[in-house]
């Protein structure tokens, strides 16, 4: 047992640090991840440098412009990049999910056209899976694609689409045959987000920010050459995309035990005597937060060890988001209440992060798989428990019951 990189990993890490130091500013803690303020031009310039330096597509095959390294190197770069301002945000979905899907499931022509331009930041991607009636149940997508000669005509609506407003291309899951059972009638396409039939409307989040969008499709014409995988194989392709999401899962982005410990040194405690940090009830909770944060951090080390030995990220990495998102909500809530009457005041400066994060923490528990879905994944894929009996099995999609 030791915590050191192998010599090869250490060399890579120091190269990564040198690159990042030269090209990025240190990060400000507590800002909503992917939240406003990222200047697209700077992000694109950074991505170009990253690609030139060989830090884009670290795990991708060399023949597709990647570096062909094992997954551990992507994790190492992510650890180091995470210490800086998040300029890589606009490319996470494309490079983490959409383009890897095209590499493994797309045609040669598609790889030729899209991979390089994504790697060097020229083109941005979004993922068009979720719909108003297909959230956790993504395969319930209703957006229709109807064959018209050599093309397809798409009508429908997607939602929760991160970065749709800045995207050039989208990976689009649509229903091509409602006569078939739910999972069998889906097909995946690449859609040009600048097409006139594509309308992007920002969603105003409860936190005040707008990272997500609704995307409307009105008679959008897509060439059959833009289909990824076979007709009716959309679900299979979607699973590849979702599997790639696991490596992209980040750390704990908000204020954590160390920040609330510092706050508690400065605030008076509920007994009116001494600092909050001396309050026994607070101290017990602080210990719990520490144990949870360490459990996540050390669990990542265990995952890294497995990856270092050639393993692939499995469903067990779902744990991280469950514990981090819940701890964040708990800590931000405690920090606000600890300020007593004053807790409701939106503050500038370091203490303001608790209030800000309190408002975006609920989103973290939902995005990328809600707590409940992640627990189902753990129960079914890790523990081997049986699936729920399905009401949608072997029933034509058009005949499935729908609610609101």
């Amino acid at each position, binding site marked *: *047992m*030791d*915590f*050191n*990189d*192998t010599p090869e*990993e250490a060399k890579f890490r120091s190269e990564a640090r040198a690159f990042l130091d030269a090209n990025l500013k240190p990060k400000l803690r507590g800002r909503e991840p992917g939240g406003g303020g990222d200047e697209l031009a700077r992000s694109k310039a950074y991505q170009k440098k990253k690609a030139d330096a060989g830090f884009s597509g670290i795990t991708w095959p060399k023949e597709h412009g990647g570096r062909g390294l094992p997954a*551990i190197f992507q994790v190492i770069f992510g650890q180091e990049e995470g210490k800086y301002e998040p300029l890589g945000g606009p490319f996470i979905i494309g490079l983490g999910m959409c383009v890897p899907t095209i590499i493994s499931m797309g045609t040669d022509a598609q790889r030729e056209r899209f991979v390089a331009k994504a790697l060097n930041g020229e083109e941005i991607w979004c993922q068009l899976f979720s719909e108003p009636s297909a959230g956790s149940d993504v395969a319930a997508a209703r957006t229709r694609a109807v064959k018209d000669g050599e093309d397809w005509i798409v009508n429908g609506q997607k939602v929760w689409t991160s970065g749709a407003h800045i995207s050039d291309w989208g990976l689009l899951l649509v229903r091509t045959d409602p006569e078939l059972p739910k999972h069998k009638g889906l097909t995946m396409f690449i859609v040009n987000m600048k097409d006139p039939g594509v309308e992007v409307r920002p969603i105003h989040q409860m936190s005040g920010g707008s990272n997500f969008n609704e995307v409307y499709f009105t008679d959008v014409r897509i060439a059959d050459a833009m289909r990824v995988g076979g007709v009716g194989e959309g679900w299979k392709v979607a699973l590849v995309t979702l599997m790639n999401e696991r490596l992209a899962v980040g750390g704990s982005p908000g204020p954590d*035990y*160390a920040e609330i*410990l*510092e706050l508690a*040194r400065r605030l008076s405690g509920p007994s009116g005597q001494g600092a909050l*940090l001396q309050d*026994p009830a607070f*101290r*017990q909770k*602080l*210990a*719990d937060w*520490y*144990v*949870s944060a*360490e*459990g*996540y951090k*050390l*669990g990542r*080390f*265990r995952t*890294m*060890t*497995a990856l*270092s030995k050639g393993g692939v990220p499995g469903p*067990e990495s779902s*744990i991280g988001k*469950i*514990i981090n998102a819940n701890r964040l909500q708990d800590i931000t809530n405690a920090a606000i209440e600890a300020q007593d009457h004053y807790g409701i005041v939106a503050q500038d400066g370091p203490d303001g992060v608790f209030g800000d994060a309190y408002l975006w923490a609920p989103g973290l528990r939902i995005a990328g798989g809600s707590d*409940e879905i*992640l*627990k*189902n994944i*753990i*129960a*079914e894929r*890790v*523990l*081997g*428990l*049986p*699936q*729920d*009996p399905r009401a949608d099995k072997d029933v034509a999609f058009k005949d499935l019951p729908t609610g609101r």
Partner: protein
Amino acid sequence: MNFDFSDEQKQLKDEARRFLADKASKSALRKILDGQSGLDGKAGASYDKTLWKGVAEMGWLGAAIPEAHGGLGLGRLELCVLAEEIGRSLAAVPFSSTVYFFAEALLLAGSDAQKAAWLPKIAQGDAIGCFAISEGPGAVSASAIRCSYENGALNGVKTPVTDGDVADAAIVLAKEGSGLSLFLAPLEGVARESLKTLEPTRGHAALTFKNTKAERIGEAGRGWELAEAVLDRAATLLAFEQVGGAQACLEMAVDYAKNRYAFSRPIGSFQGIKHKLADMYVNIEVARSNAYYAAWALSTEAPELKLAAAAARVAACEAYHFAAKENVQTHGGIGFTWEVDCHLFYRRAKLLAVQAGAPAVWKEKLVRQLEAKNAA
């Protein structure tokens, strides 16, 4: 990055699991339980003597004892993997008292003569040790210790002492002058009152010292500090027992949930059960990761041990408590019966949660370490 046990250590773990599956069966455990609970009409032994002999023959008692003192001279990491398997099997043997507390105290602070006198006997399985600091209900604190040492002899009462009913010697925290010191006391002739506890598969006693001959371990006046250091080591090793026990609960509950049908479907297909079992899994993984870190700190004698041991203990107590109670719950009515093993884990989980100090005490220790580390 290599945050995992080595292949050799994993092999040792597999070997331990096979050995315990055979020699530490639940039916053997139940003989101790029934005897101690008075169910067979006569008081039985408080530990499984055949198993204890087998454990000694496997060399486990001396796994971390240097070869010079008759041990195998392996490391603490090896002890950790053994602890996990012992925890999983619920083995009814005085392993933790003897190895994690008594032997660790000697290794930490014993003189050469003390080590030479006791460690070979422990490694051979010829001596059982215990650790006596509690004197009654409430958090153990330096200022509340009444037991005292004067002119080479101990006086006072320690209760409850895990395995105190069968131990040959105890490590005792007592007053010496104005401070506290740690002592080694052979228990021959010491009055022992066996205690009825919530966990009859481990023996407990109240020990009454009356002019009991004892010798100091370590420096005079450093008793509290040394006891805390022993507890850090024991907490780390116990965390592995707890993770092993919690994992066994999870496996038991998963197996039941897959095979028990209600409303014409396995109960494991209901999200009420699924999410409960997923929570168990998450808690156990958090505990396991924290335990690994403490194991690393213990094995390298890193200064991080104090904080790491506290985190490991807090996480392990929580994971085992949750897994043990929700395992009963998953089983429903049958889980509430004497015949089904759920209560064996439920009982052991509680013993391990208080044996080295309760979680609340460790949370306080943890925060003190954090304060020192993040001193403004």
